[in-house]
């Protein structure tokens, strides 16, 4: 029963990992950018929410509703101002720009908020839970985050397949030049992709912040989770990312069941195993 419990908890966590990893996957898929500041952006969102809650006393849900669109706008601007120019200089330049951004964000947070560990108070809702079966207790918060993550992924999926702009995102990912030939303005398409990535990162960052503690240096380890989820699931597939996130979440949860110090290591080892034996990922080859 203990093991079953671990699987359930891991599954719920995995949904969050998937939501968090979607932005990384999307930015890579559409622009071939690996955003090394991905994890730090989530932490920035967490600190922003912390400051907003502390400064204005607004309820958390209002803060979330404000932060997520704000990040979408920030994402669009970041792409147009910072990333677009480096795209033509090749993959090294974009990698360096995002890595530089990561270092800048981490250290600015450190200077403003100090290295103290924080959590975002989710109120009584964050700690309440219900009995699923026997000894398996499911927290409302993990369940709601999981459902929200799935809903957002489904929404992105609908956007990508049913709308003209979404189709153009996928088309640009296949062949940018030909997408230009049917009328896509790459800068706008890329801006939209980055906006979606930033919005999902912010949402995931806020959910992480309610679930577990964070500090200015948390970003890189979060980035690694997202990266592992993407690689395990297979590049360029939204459902692959969901599967990858769940595999990672369940593995970590089972690992911690064996020995709490094994949590991260177990996840990394599954990642390395996938890399060694199935480098294309579990769901590779399918498109969204």
């Amino acid at each position: 029963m203990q093991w079953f419990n671990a699987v359930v908890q891991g599954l719920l966590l995995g949904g969050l990992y998937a939501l968090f990893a979607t932005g990384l996957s999307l930015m890579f898929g559409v622009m071939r950018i690996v955003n090394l500041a991905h994890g730090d952006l989530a932490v920035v969102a967490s600190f922003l929410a912390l400051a907003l809650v502390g400064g204005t006393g607004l309820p958390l849900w209002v803060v979330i509703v404000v932060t997520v669109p704000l990040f979408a706008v920030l994402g669009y601007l970041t792409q147009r101002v910072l990333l677009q120019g480096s795209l033509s200089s090749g993959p090294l330049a974009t990698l360096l720009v995002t890595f530089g951004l990561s270092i800048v964000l981490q250290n600015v947070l450190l200077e403003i908020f100090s290295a103290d560990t924080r959590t975002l108070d989710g109120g009584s809702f964050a700690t309440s839970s219900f009995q699923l079966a026997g000894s398996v207790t499911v927290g409302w918060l993990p369940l709601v985050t999981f459902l929200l993550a799935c809903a957002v992924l489904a929404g992105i999926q609908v956007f990508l397949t049913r709308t003209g702009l979404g189709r153009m995102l996928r088309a640009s990912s296949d062949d940018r030049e030909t997408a230009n030939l049917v009328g896509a303005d790459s800068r706008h398409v890329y801006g939209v992709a980055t906006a979606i990535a930033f919005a999902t990162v912010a949402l995931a960052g806020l959910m992480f912040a309610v679930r577990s503690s964070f500090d200015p240096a948390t970003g890189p380890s979060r980035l690694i989770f997202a990266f592992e989820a993407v690689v395990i699931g297979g590049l360029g597939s939204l459902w692959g990312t969901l599967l990858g996130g769940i595999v990672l979440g369940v593995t970590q949860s089972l690992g911690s069941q064996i020995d709490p110090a094994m949590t991260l290591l177990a996840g990394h080892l599954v990642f390395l195993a996938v890399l060694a034996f199935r480098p294309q990922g579990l769901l590779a080859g399918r498109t969204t």
Partner: protein
Amino acid sequence: MSLLSIRDLTVHHGLLRAVDGVSLELERGEVLAVIGANGAGKSTLLRALAGLNAPTSGTVHLAGRDITRSPAHQRVSAGIALVPEGRRLFRSLTVEENLLTGTYRKRSGPWTLQRVYELFPWMTERRRQNAAQLSGGEQQAVAIGRALLTNPDLLLVDELSLGLAPVIVRRIYETLPEIVAAGTTALVVEQDVSQALRVADRVHCLLEGRSVLAGRPADLTAEQVEHAYFGIGDLTQDGKD
């Protein structure tokens, strides 16, 4: 006023002058074929017209509007569509999704998804199939349909016959009159000279980036065309319009 007016267009690939001072005019409703040997600069000319390669000098006007410096996506709105060399369908999209990308700019005109399905009836059944699974000729048809759905005034087609069986090429060319009748002007690049002479109102021959021969198929002798194509003899009096 001509639909397309190119003056002294020069395009470089690095140090190479791929298109060298080409001028040409294209009237509405015409079919112009550009012929020339491999590496003559035909694709470069079309890519420059579509906005993928920036010209070094010269001008391009579409219906009187200077579009020399517009990016590719704005030229789609202005009414230019290119069927690129090698078809270049979006591999991860279905046939129908590939076609629908053409409607992104929502330019008004005669072409709708329905109309394209009427032009190529086989597509209806296979519209949910992945574009990468089609044969070369089928892909070419989808690429043409995709370009038509942008509702262009000027359709540029680069090497329609590349890698296709003659019977397929003929079948696709049979749709050309219908496309032109719908109000579209066409500029096609063709390796197959006899095919080009058959379908075009006028032909234009490029040699090492320069335009060496232009005229109506009926007015040109086979020898003239052959000389221009292979660069034999003195060409200067034929060329340059």
